[in-house]
């Protein structure tokens, strides 16, 4: 039998699923004792070039509250043409189109290799893609110019039938009409006033006054869309729009000395959503918000326009000193929810040296699956390339984005679903498989993902509900089915169904099996997501304490030790890395706010809860490669001892790519040896990390910050803050070694952390 590693890999490749446990404890009690819940990371739209979609509709279980999709786990009676639902055990006849079914003539969905299958649904008219640019004009000239160019460029990347719209804002909010000849026309809103969606539609003439339906309903959206002058197909307006963008001026209102420009971000978004609501509800749309600073007026204001009042810091927030925080957050949450209801997602591209209010606005993207990109300026390759990559295409030439996704989870009876953590909102569907115990966004078996891309990954948490005294029969399997409906970027509606099953195991008799089925990487990420989710609402130290507790309990459960003898403590291979992940997680910006602005924290967390397992792990524990003359590049410990004078280090933290030249290397480089023919090898050595970095840069979204530094360089801090401080000014001489670089910190090192962990794990008092 394949190792668990192989099994896990195979499952991930095929279904996009990584479970924390690959054998499931058969009772609630035992499951609880395992500390790490039965849970999985699920990537609904994982790219599967080998998986052609089928052109028909899925066959559903006929039981009204089940509606599970026919899958390879179902028992099929080919003669009677009947299949039994493996979730509710309902026996269903096959539909007439399956008349020819037989053991040798099975539809794809019954074949084991199609545990994940994608259906193309023909229902309904194809809905267009919509891109609504919402552009801040309170930018420096240079930034604005760069942004304009990026936007103009993006028009060429859009499919010709996609609809585009443009809103610009500063002190006022302008909605541009795109089809005007001879005179450019825009509707202007005051940036300080909160408008209801209806008001906005009225003001823009999107409601026909005399045409309300019988109950005074606003007119049907399609009709409104037909005369919406603000969202038009790219092919019709690209000339106009290019000119319009070209003529965009900085916000013309004077900004007095000592003031910030007035930026009506809140109203601008509200208007954008109002337009979409009135014209294309429940149609995939991206609202792309470009901001160069914090909202400074109107609803959603994050900071006043007085420069002498700085924008809130974590310190202010802890002191409850952030005046606008609550109000603004509430405002953006309301917007985000409205947007989510209509299936529109919101991207935020924030480029500024100071904070821009992402903390308050994060929910816009978090709830709607939008991107958040943070940079220093629109005139950087970081922004330009990231933005370009939003429109990247897959092997079929389709955009790597999908809209209006609905993920439904069905479980077999022994399991219930507790919740999900990821860029989604609850649809409040209280099916029978919904647990009362909520983890993450719970209380539902369906979530809406307004925008999904192939890497979007959700953490989904389950609860074993089987009672201890009613054991599952040996060899029984629990099953989970993920049904994801979405609007493909080619405007088709599709349904992807993934059905997986795991064996039940009795935790008392088969604890070793269960232990070895532990996927510590997945578990680390899933626990980290829980931690980050908590951190959004709880104090940082509480979260750390909770994480520590969980870790200690896990060690107690699975560690081998003699009571009260820390030195005797051992962990099996399947758990060996887990404590280390937790150590780095504790130090990560996802849980530590020290040295990060609130915006940065929000930004990091945003990406953490949506990336797939590999990327998430990189975020938790950055990867460090070492380049030297001593051999090929090798991954090395993320430890200060890895920082040596004759090495070049490449660190990938997901958000940053740091190339660090050791002291000697840096001197050589300064001396220009690489220019000399005889030191060709040095030149190659210098080049190697650059090439590797380039490779990473090519694929990563968003583009990481690229840092090239050296020993003693100020930017070396990015590296120094990440490595395990095994050598510090406190123990440097005690170690008495020449290797490595001491880190000036009082943070505990991994070694100290482990010592404490062992001590606590073996302590009899806990």
């Amino acid at each position: 039998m394949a190792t668990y590693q192989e099994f896990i890999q195979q499952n991930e490749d095929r279904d996009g699923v990584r479970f924390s446990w690959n054998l499931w404890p058969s009772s609630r009690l035992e499951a609880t004792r395992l500390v790490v819940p039965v849970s999985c990371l699920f990537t609904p739209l994982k790219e599967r070039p080998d998986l052609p979609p089928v052109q028909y509709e899925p066959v559903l279980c006929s039981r009204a509250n089940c509606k599970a999709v026919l899958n390879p786990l179902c028992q099929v009676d080919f003669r009677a043409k009947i299949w039994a639902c493996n979730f509710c055990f309902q026996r269903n006849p096959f539909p007439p189109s399956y008349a020819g079914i037989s053991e040798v003539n099975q539809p794809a969905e019954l074949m084991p290799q199609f545990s994940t299958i994608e259906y193309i649904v023909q229902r309904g008219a194809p809905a267009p893609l919509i891109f609504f640019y919402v552009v801040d004009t309170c930018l420096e000239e240079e930034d604005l110019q760069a942004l304009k160019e990026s936007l103009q460029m993006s028009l060429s990347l859009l499919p010709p039938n996609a609809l585009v719209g443009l809103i610009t804002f500063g002190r006022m909010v302008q909605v541009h009409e795109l089809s005007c000849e001879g005179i450019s026309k825009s509707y202007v809103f005051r940036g300080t006033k909160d408008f209801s969606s209806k008001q906005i539609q009225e003001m823009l003439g999107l409601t026909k006054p005399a045409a309300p339906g019988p109950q005074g309903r606003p007119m049907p959206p399609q009709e409104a869309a037909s005369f919406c002058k603000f969202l038009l197909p790219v092919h019709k307006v690209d000339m106009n729009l290019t000119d319009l963008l070209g003529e965009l001026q900085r916000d013309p209102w004077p900004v007095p000395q000592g003031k910030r420009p007035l930026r009506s971000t809140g109203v601008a978004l509200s208007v954008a959503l109002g337009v979409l609501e009135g014209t294309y509800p429940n149609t995939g749309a991206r609202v792309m918000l470009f901001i160069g600073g914090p909202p400074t007026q109107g609803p959603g204001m994050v900071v006043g326009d007085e420069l002498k009042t700085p924008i809130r810091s974590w310190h202010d927030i802890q002191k409850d000193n952030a005046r606008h925080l609550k109000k603004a957050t509430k405002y953006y949450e309301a917007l985000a929810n409205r947007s989510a209801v209509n299936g529109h997602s919101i991207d935020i591209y924030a480029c500024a040296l100071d904070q821009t209010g992402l903390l308050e606005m994060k929910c816009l993207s978090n709830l709607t699956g939008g991107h958040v990109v943070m940079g220093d300026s629109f005139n950087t390759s970081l922004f330009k390339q990231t933005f370009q990559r939003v429109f990247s295409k897959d092997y079929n030439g389709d955009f790597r984005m999908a809209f209006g996704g609905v993920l439904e989870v069905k479980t077999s009876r022994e399991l219930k679903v507790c919740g999900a953590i990821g860029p989604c909102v609850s649809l409040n569907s209280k099916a029978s498989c919904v647990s009362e115990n909520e983890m993450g966004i719970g209380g539902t078996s369906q979530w809406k993902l307004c925008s999904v891309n192939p890497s979007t990954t959700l953490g989904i948490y389950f609860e074993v509900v089987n009672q201890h005294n009613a054991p599952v029969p040996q060899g029984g399997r629990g099953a989970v089915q993920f049904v994801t409906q979405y609007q493909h970027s080619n405007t088709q509606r599709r349904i992807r169904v993934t059905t997986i099953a795991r064996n039940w195991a009795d935790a008392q008799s088969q604890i070793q099996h269960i232990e070895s089925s532990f996927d510590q990487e997945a578990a680390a990420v899933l626990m980290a997501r829980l931690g980050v989710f908590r951190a959004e609402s709880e104090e940082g130290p509480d979260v750390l304490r909770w994480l520590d507790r969980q870790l200690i309990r896990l060690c107690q459960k699975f560690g081998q030790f003699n009571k009260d003898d820390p030195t005797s403590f051992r962990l099996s291979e399947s758990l060996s890395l887990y404590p280390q992940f937790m150590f780095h997680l504790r130090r990560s910006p996802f849980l530590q706010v020290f040295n990060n602005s609130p915006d940065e924290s929000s930004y990091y967390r945003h990406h953490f809860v949506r990336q797939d397992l590999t990327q998430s792990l990189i975020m938790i524990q950055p990867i460090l490669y070492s380049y030297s003359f001593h051999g090929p590049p090798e991954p090395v410990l993320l430890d200060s001892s890895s920082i040596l004078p004759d090495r070049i280090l490449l660190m990938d933290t997901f958000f940053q790519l740091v190339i660090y030249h050791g002291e000697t290397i840096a001197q050589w480089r300064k001396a220009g040896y690489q220019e000399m023919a005889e030191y060709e090898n040095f030149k190659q050595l210098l080049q190697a990390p650059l090439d590797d970095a380039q490779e990473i840069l090519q694929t990563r979204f968003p583009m990481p910050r690229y840092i090239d530094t050296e020993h003693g360089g100020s930017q070396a801090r990015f590296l120094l803050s990440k490595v395990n401080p095994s050598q510090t000014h406190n123990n440097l001489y005690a170690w008495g070694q020449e290797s490595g670089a001491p880190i000036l910190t009082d943070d505990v090192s991994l070694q100290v952390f482990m010592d404490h962990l062992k001590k606590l794990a073996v302590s009899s008092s806990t």
Partner: protein
Amino acid sequence: MSQQGYVATPPYSQAQPGMGGYQGGFGPGPAQPLYGHYGGPAQAFTAPPTGLMKSPVTSAAGMPPPPASSQYNPNVQQNGAHPQRYPVPPVVSSTYGQPPQPPYNSMASPGPPPAQQLTNQMSAMNLGNYGQASMQSPPPPASTVAQQPFQAPPPVGHPQMLPGLQSPHMSPQMPPPQSPQASMSMTGQPMAAPPMGGMGRPFPGAPPPGLGGFQQPGPGVAGPQGYPQQAGQFGGPMAGPQPGMPGAFPGAPAPMAGPPQKKLDPDSIPSITQVIEDDQVKHGGQVYSTNIRGQVPPLVTTDFTVQDQGNASPRFIRSTTYTLPCTADLAKQCQVPLASIIRPFASLPKNEAPLYVVNHGETGPIRCNRCKAYMCPYMQFIDGGRRYQCGFCNCVSEVPAFYFQHLDHMGRRVDFYERPELSVGSYEFVATLDYCKNNKPPNPPAYIFMIDVSYNNVKSGLVKLICDELKTLLEKLPREEGAESSAVKVGFVTYNKILHFYNVKSTLAQPQMMVVSDTAEMFVPLLDGFLVNYQDSRAVIYNLLDQIPDMFADTNESETVFAPVIQAGLEAFKAAECSGKLFVFHSSMPTAEAPGKLKNRDDKKLINTEKEKTLFQPQKGVYEQLSKDCVVQGCCVDLFLFPSQYVDLATMADVPSHTGGSVYKYNNFQVETDGEHFLRDLRKDVQKSIGFDAIMRVRTSTGFRATDFFGAIHMNNTTDVEMAAVDCDKALTVEYKHDDALSEETGAFIQCALLYTTVNGQRRLRIHNLSLNCSSQLLELYKSCETDSLINFFAKTAYRAILNQPLKNVREILVNQTAHMLACYRKNCASPSAASQLILPDAMKVFPVYMNSLMKTAPLMGSTELSTDDRAHQRLSVMGMGVEDTQLLLYPRLIPLHNMDASSEALPAPVRCSEERLADSGMFLLENGHSMFLWLGQASPPELVQSMFNLPSLAHLQGHVPALPELDNPLSKKVRSIISALLEKRPNSMKLQIVRQRDKPEVLFRQFLVEDKSLHGGSSYMDFLCYVHREIRQLLT
């Protein structure tokens, strides 16, 4: 009676019966005996009803007074000066005629030889003329004496008499006198009988006497009687019903004579046209130097040149009287309002020097330390020129070193003639930063054109018309004297129920339109590019103006907003930190959901009730606040309305009327018929000279002070007059009250200081100074009264009063005050005469005509047939009017065109506004500054029609003729040049309406014949006079 009497009671009394009379007399034929004289009267007084009734009796009693009665010397004014005209050949006027004369005679007799008088009178007064004319015919019966004198004059006779016409009527009327009471009943007329009645009394008795009533005491020259001339006097004749009286009137007695005739000769009562003409003859073309304190200037209608020699030109300030009573008691006693009408930006004719600009450097203008009056000719330099004493508060201040100058032997500064502020009455100071908002120099003002592009305006073609016109009009924005181009910036907004702003920045390839739908909280969506220099952005603006009509060509939006439109302009000015003017072209009542939404509250049932005033009151709330905000920012609003129905003008015009703006109204606008009319208004409005963000203060010397202000202004406190803008046509009326006694010796000073921003964006102070006499003799006061100013004051007070009181009360107050003023004169200044004689001060002799006309104006007339909006419009426009405009409005010019000399340059002399003056075969032009009619008599000769219209006969004149065809014949040319000259001269454009006698539209025309009964119940001049006379008599008893 009839003769002189029109005035006199008799008529009235008869009125009842006779009332019809007069009119009849004039208009209708001779036939009606009864009415003969007063036909008109009855109606007239409807209003007054209440009081009237009673009087009759008494009066009756009074009447008898055979003595004086007969005469009114209407004309009398100054003795010599205005001779009455009796010119008419006695012959003509058979019946009534002469009334006037009698009085004269009587008066005269003592003094100057009759002949002279006559002559004098003749020239001056019309009254005489008319009266006599008619009178004379009858000669025999009555007083021989009198007649003779008059008759003598015949030679003198002025053209006006038109004896022919009158006489005929008159005669018939002669009817027997009726008893006063009887008369009351007024057979003919429904109305007023009662009131009239009052008047009537005189009649009964010896008719004659009553009439005599009005004497206008002239300036007191001779003895009491001495002034026969007293203008006012309408001869007592009235009484003298009898034809006999006519001519004669030797002395008072005459009247007695026959049975009273009821008829008064309309020609015998004081005539405005005559007064005007006389003044023109006296002062026309002359130089009027303002070097004398308390000097009464020529009439507003007179064409003269002003030389400023220490007092402001009457073009800038006119006073109701140039001699103030010394004490409050006197003022109260005479009840003559003390007021000035100030028109700070009055335009000056080319031959008068523009105002000097004085710059006192960084310290700013020199001002009295205590009262802050500005340096002016009334500052007395003392102490060798080191100090000066303020003429207003008497405080002594040091002369600043830089301003020091030695005094000459007269105690005058040596540089007297070099410094305008010492030698002239009107000049300007350059204001320093202290006089600017926030101590920052102001920006040049801006004009924003806000065009309603709702369905109505688009369909009527108005939008296109405006856009086309603006292209050329914007080249002519007002600019500083000598400046190469205008500094005024322009901006454009179109709107229906949402607003569209335009970015017309010169660097743009095409204009940008920004739509603001949030009318609840209006704001300006852009700053840069909205208000631009026309010269720089011409190409973009052209582009925009070309596009606007097309953009909205297919609109079907018919709802509009209004308050947000003004708000938008206001916000634009705020954002640009400038002042300026909004030109709003609006079509309909703003009913769209937005602040300032209005609903139809035009309820005809309110008319003539306590609540009628609500029709004039603006609705509270939004507009009130908006006015205040506009004034603070210096945002003036000019409203051009194109309504097809009620729009609640009272409310819509609230902001314009508080910000120094104007309201123009074009009912049922059609481009073909009203286009040119509107464009003329627009052109004048855009180009006229104007000052912005103005604040005015009127300072007075000790003893009296300004207490009340009327005009298109806003008052935040009791002394500072704030005006968002003030243009050359806006005047405000200031009323003064005594604080203390005034000294005859020092006189009284008024200094009006206006701080404003020029069209160039310069802050300036404009100073107008005026000195008045003081006297403890009422006679002096009456002598230096100015009727035109008085009526301006009364019009404004009355129009303001109707906001708070029922019309009836207001009208009563007007009549009472009129009567009181005249009675006081009679009592204190005039020579003793019979109570039945109506005696008017010379300076006020035409006052009753104006007053009557005022009371007949739409705002003061409670009639359901008048449009509420029109009434409100007139009310508001009068509030900002100067003396010239109210004069013209209340007494339109009626110019006969059929018999003029086409080759002469001169404008034919206007005739009195009465139907009687029309001729079936004539052609008349009537204009009052707001309307213009070309009236064609039924029997107009075909040649005339041919040369005017190129049509064979009047019958071919079909439909509306927007303008006279341009024909190449002397008559057509002349008429057209007259019309265009008038249009040029008046502040407002007028639409020429051509009416044929007896056609329906003639009704419109007739309402401007202010001496006649009005269609809506106003009394005729004659009736009114009788009524007033009755009141006076009541006061005197």
